[in-house]
């Protein structure tokens, strides 16, 4: 069907929307054909304003730059919803945010995981890597492959070091150095004052020790049920450069 015919069909549907029984079956057949061909000129939706809101956020948020490199596809939606929820919390709209978070949690565990990774800034490792690969001039397939592998590691908990599991700063240094050498980044997470001290020591080591001059560290604190949690993200400077301030709308 040509664009002109499609426009006529859409016009007919809109004009008769409040008298839907008047729309001939033949027209519905054409609409279905348009849908099946992927023509995105028309949609039927229960809450149009809410839907338009998500379209607007997707086009104006930083996610617009990164989404095409993130797989599997369903993660993109979870990430967009995480961005919306985090902003609601930042704006003090806790009740709405909690409700939406509950919906995300009920969707599936990975949706909740995406929210946790984004709200603790751990997702920045993925964004920073994408930025670096774009700068290097890599093609879309390469960028998608590498960033999806990093995201998969984060989702499946293969690249986060839980500080509470290590008895001392000295013990903790080994896996940190090993991961920095292998992956170019390291994420640590811990709770309680003893573990926070270990994280602070690691942070000081990265900042002060010449051995780590090519790395940059950022930390994040949040509370769950009154208990403080800390995360520390260490990442190679050439990966991290230019990311700050771009990934929190």
């Amino acid at each position, binding site marked *: 069907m040509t664009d002109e015919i499609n426009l006529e069909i*859409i016009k007919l*549907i*809109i004009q008769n*929307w409040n008298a*839907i*029984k008047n729309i001939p*079956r033949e027209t*519905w057949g054409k*609409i*279905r054909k*348009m*849908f*099946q061909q*992927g*023509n*995105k*000129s*028309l*949609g*039927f*939706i*229960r*809450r*149009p304003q*809410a*839907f*338009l809101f*998500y*379209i607007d956020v*997707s*086009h104006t948020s930083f*996610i*617009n*730059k990164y*989404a*095409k490199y993130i797989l599997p*596809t*369903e993660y*993109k*939606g*979870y*990430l*967009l*919803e995480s961005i*919306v929820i985090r902003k609601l919390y930042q704006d003090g709209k806790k009740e709405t945010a909690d409700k*939406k978070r509950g*919906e*995300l949690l009920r*969707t*599936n565990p990975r*949706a909740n995981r995406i929210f946790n990774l984004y709200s603790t800034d751990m997702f920045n490792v993925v964004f920073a890597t994408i930025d670096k690969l774009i700068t290097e001039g890599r093609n879309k397939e390469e960028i998608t492959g590498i960033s999806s592998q990093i995201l998969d590691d984060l989702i499946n908990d293969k690249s986060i070091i839980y500080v509470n599991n290590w008895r001392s700063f000295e013990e903790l240094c080994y896996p940190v150095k090993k991961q920095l050498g292998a992956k170019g980044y390291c994420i640590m997470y811990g709770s309680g004052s003893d573990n926070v001290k270990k994280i602070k020591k690691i942070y000081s080591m990265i900042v002060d020790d010449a051995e780590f001059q090519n790395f940059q560290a950022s930390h994040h604190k949040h509370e769950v049920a009154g208990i403080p949690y800390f995360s520390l993200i260490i990442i190679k400077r050439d990966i991290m450069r230019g990311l700050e301030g771009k990934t929190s709308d």
Partner: protein
Amino acid sequence: MELLEITDSNIDILLEEFGKEIDESGFIVDKATKEHVKCRYTNKDLKRDTLGGILPGSEIFIENSDVAFAGYVMEFLSNND
């Protein structure tokens, strides 16, 4: 994208014209196969009251939830070039 609102007064005709019906348990099913229609993004079986949208990209049925809205927008309406 022109958006037309699904309401209680037009949903039955919409379902009918898209080849769907409501089974005895209240679920939306395909008329031909009798299979439950699931939300692409939440994987939930849809009922008349939980249907949130019928959208292009083939014929995509989604739940009336923000997660489903976000999922569709990111898959089909964001910058995926």
